[in-house]
């Protein structure tokens, strides 16, 4: 009873206030700055993460857009693959956009030779599913459960989710049915880049989830 009460009040207090959250942004390569900008605008504390001790200090992690094969190489070269896999396994909330979604997927379709993902999100993701840059596009997308109004979505040589496994909820699809946003527990993966549009709503949704995870952890102590 007291635990439920504590949980309930905690989530009331944090609604719309993210100052107590420490959010890491994986900062090896990609549109790190755009994510930091949106997160800071929402009031979160932001830490660039490139080392295990930086990862250990955060309440959640954002994996930015970039080139997934390069992110993978750098993550391994600098000894971050294991710490990241352990953090995801232990329930760290993670939000990945584009290359970030690919990094979170259990399986990559059409990967570059020897490319590995971190895994954890039970989906198959096809890398660069639309073609070359000429096929990159922007469109407004419905994201039920995340935000009421459509979100402007920019797809840059973007991936799509080809198969969803157990416990994965589909958040958004293109008009042709292709899956471009999924959620599994505290893992959120999307094909496009709300950060380059400067739209804060998807990040705001994620921070809300992080706040929930933080208060759950506190409640369980």
């Amino acid at each position, binding site marked *: 009873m007291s635990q439920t009460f504590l949980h309930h009040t905690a989530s009331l207090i944090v609604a719309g206030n993210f100052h107590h959250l420490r959010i890491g942004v994986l*900062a*090896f*390569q*990609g*549109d*790190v*700055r*755009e994510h930091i900008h949106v997160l800071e605008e929402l009031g979160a504390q932001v830490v660039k993460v*490139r080392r295990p001790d930086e990862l250990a200090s955060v309440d959640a992690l954002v994996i930015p*857009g*970039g*080139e997934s*094969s*390069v992110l993978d*190489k*750098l993550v391994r*070269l*600098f000894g971050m693959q294991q710490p990241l896999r352990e953090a995801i396994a232990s329930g760290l909330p993670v939000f990945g956009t*584009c*290359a970030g979604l690919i990094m979170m997927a259990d399986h990559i379709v*059409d990967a*570059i*030779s020897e490319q590995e993902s971190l895994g954890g999100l039970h989906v198959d993701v096809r*890398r*660069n599913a639309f*073609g*070359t*840059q*000429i*096929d*990159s*596009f*922007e*469109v*407004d997308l*419905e994201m039920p459960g995340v935000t009421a*109004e*459509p979100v*402007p979505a*920019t797809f*840059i*040589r973007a991936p799509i989710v080809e198969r969803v496994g157990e416990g994965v909820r589909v958040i958004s699809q293109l*008009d042709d049915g292709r899956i471009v946003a999924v959620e599994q527990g505290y893992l959120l993966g999307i094909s496009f*880049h709300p950060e*380059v*549009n400067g739209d804060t709503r998807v990040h705001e949704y994620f921070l809300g989830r992080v706040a929930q995870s933080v208060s759950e952890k506190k409640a369980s102590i």
Partner: protein
Amino acid sequence: MTEKNNAPLTGSNRVKRGLAEQLKGGVIMDVVNAEQARIAEDAGAIAVMALERVPADIRAQGGVARMSDPDLIEGIQAAVKIPVMAKARIGHFVEAQVLAELNVDFIDESEVLSPADYINHIDKWAFDVPFVCGATNLGEALRRINEGAAMIRSKGEAGTGDVSEATKHIRKINSELRWLSSMSKDELYVAAKELQAPYDLVVEVAAAGKLPVPMFTAGGVATPADAAMMLQLGADGVFVGSGIFKSGEPAARAKAIVKAAAFFDDPQVIVETSRGLGEAMVGINVSDIPAPHRLADRGW
């Protein structure tokens, strides 16, 4: 929120600049064949620039340098999955049309090739493919952005392995950005005149304190320390042309430069990446190149 836009929009400014944003922190490598492209991809290149001769050879061999053969570009596109860029001559909009038709991911309107127009650059708004253009100063950068460039590349002096010009150009652009930000509103009219750049763009950049597109650095980057210095000076990423495949051990050097770019602010990492790379490209001191042969002066 306006009403929902259901029709996917390609080739928009946001889509073009969006790709440039995703390349940040990365190393773009010049390659002349599929084998080099694979080495670059394996080493962690963020993209490859497909061309027939690296700038050092263009410089050595002389003659008119043009767009690469479509077969060569397609061979490189088939060999790698990372973005493929290719160069068109300054002002040569038909070379750009050819590259767009080949579905390259980015076109570099480059001073490394022989200019095709000594007055006009390409109207880059006419294309769905994003363009990167060189600049040696802020005015030049703003003129290229006004023409539709989605990325700026500070020029340096290509094919030399001498980083001094790259340093000069990025410092110049950044110092002019600081100068512009410090001006009062009524001084921006004259600033636009001096920069020979459109007033609206000058106002936008003065307010933001930075360019509206990513700025990479090119021209003479040959070592991990060179790349790290460019990033510490504020570049969003680097182009490495002759520096990799004109060196003793291209694969090792390429990988080292990628690592140095990711940890550009950590001297310990730069130490490790600088070890045992074999010979760097021999290089030419820019001061030994007579002024008419300097590539950075191409662009208007």
